[in-house]
C-alpha cells in the first residue's frame, strides 16, 4: 500500500479531509497494524466532486452492488451522495471514505482541533485529535472497539464522556 500516494492525490485535488481510524492512530501513536486508510471528508457538494476526481485519479474501484463493482472513473457525477460510507479499493491499497462519523460533532469543528502531521515520506495530513479518536471508539459497541487504542488514548487525553450506545 502506498498511503503517501493516496494522501498526495487527495491534497493535489484539494479535497478537504481528515485522516481517521487506525492509520491516523498508527502514524501518531503506536505501530499497530491497520490495513485500510480511513478518511472523513467535508460533506459539501464541491468537496465531494473534488473527492470523486481524486478517487478517479487513484484508479479506485467501487460499486453499489457486486454486479456493478468497477472503476469509479465512469460513474455519474453524484455517485458520492448515496450513502454514508464507501469502502473502495485502489492500486495503492484499500480506502474508506466517510461522509459522517458516529460520535463526533461537525466536520468543521473536528477540523479546527485536528492535528497537523506528516508521514515518513513527508506527505502532510490532518488527523483527528486524540480526544476525537477516543470519542469515535466510545461511539462503537464495546465489542467493536479497539481496546489497545482506547487504553493508549485514555492515558493521553482528559476524560471524555462515554456515550456508549
Amino acid at each position, binding site marked *: 500500500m502506498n498511503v*503517501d500516494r493516496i494522501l498526495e492525490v487527495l491534497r493535489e485535488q484539494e479535497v478537504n479531509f481528515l485522516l481517521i481510524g487506525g492509520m491516523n492512530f498508527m502514524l501518531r501513536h503506536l505501530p499497530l497494524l491497520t490495513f485500510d486508510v480511513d478518511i472523513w471528508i467535508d460533506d459539501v457538494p464541491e468537496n465531494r466532486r473534488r473527492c470523486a476526481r481524486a478517487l478517479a485519479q487513484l484508479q479506485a474501484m467501487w460499486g453499489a452492488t457486486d454486479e456493478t463493482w468497477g472503476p469509479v472513473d465512469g460513474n455519474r457525477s453524484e455517485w458520492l451522495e448515496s450513502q454514508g*460510507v464507501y469502502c473502495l479499493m485502489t492500486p495503492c491499497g484499500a480506502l474508506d471514505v466517510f461522509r459522517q462519523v458516529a460520535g463526533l460533532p461537525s466536520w468543521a469543528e473536528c477540523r479546527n482541533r485536528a492535528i497537523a502531521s506528516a508521514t515518513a515520506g513527508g506527505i502532510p495530513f490532518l488527523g483527528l485529535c486524540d480526544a476525537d479518536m477516543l470519542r469515535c471508539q466510545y461511539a462503537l459497541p464495546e465489542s467493536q472497539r479497539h481496546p489497545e487504542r482506547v487504553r493508549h488514548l485514555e492515558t493521553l487525553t482528559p476524560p471524555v464522556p462515554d456515550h456508549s450506545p
Partner: protein
Amino acid sequence: MTEPLSNQIRSEEAKRERCVDPRERWRALQETIAWADAQQKPPRNSIQSCLERQRRLVAVLSRREPAEIRVAEDRPSFGSHY
C-alpha cells in the same frame, strides 16, 4: 443514508472483500506492512532496531535460571514467544 452507519460499514467491507481479487488484496496487505514499517523511526528492520531487539531478548534470557532454560529447551518448540 437511513441505514445505521455501523451496518453500512460492515456491508461495504464485505462487498469489497467479495469483489477484490484475493491476490490483489494480498499484494496490498504486504505493501501495507512494508509501508507501516517504514513509518517507524528507526525502521524495525534496521541494524539499530535488530540489535536493540536482540539486547532485550538476551536480557530476558539472562534473568532466567539455568534450570528454567534447560527445561524450556527440552520442550518441543512451536514458535517464538516474542
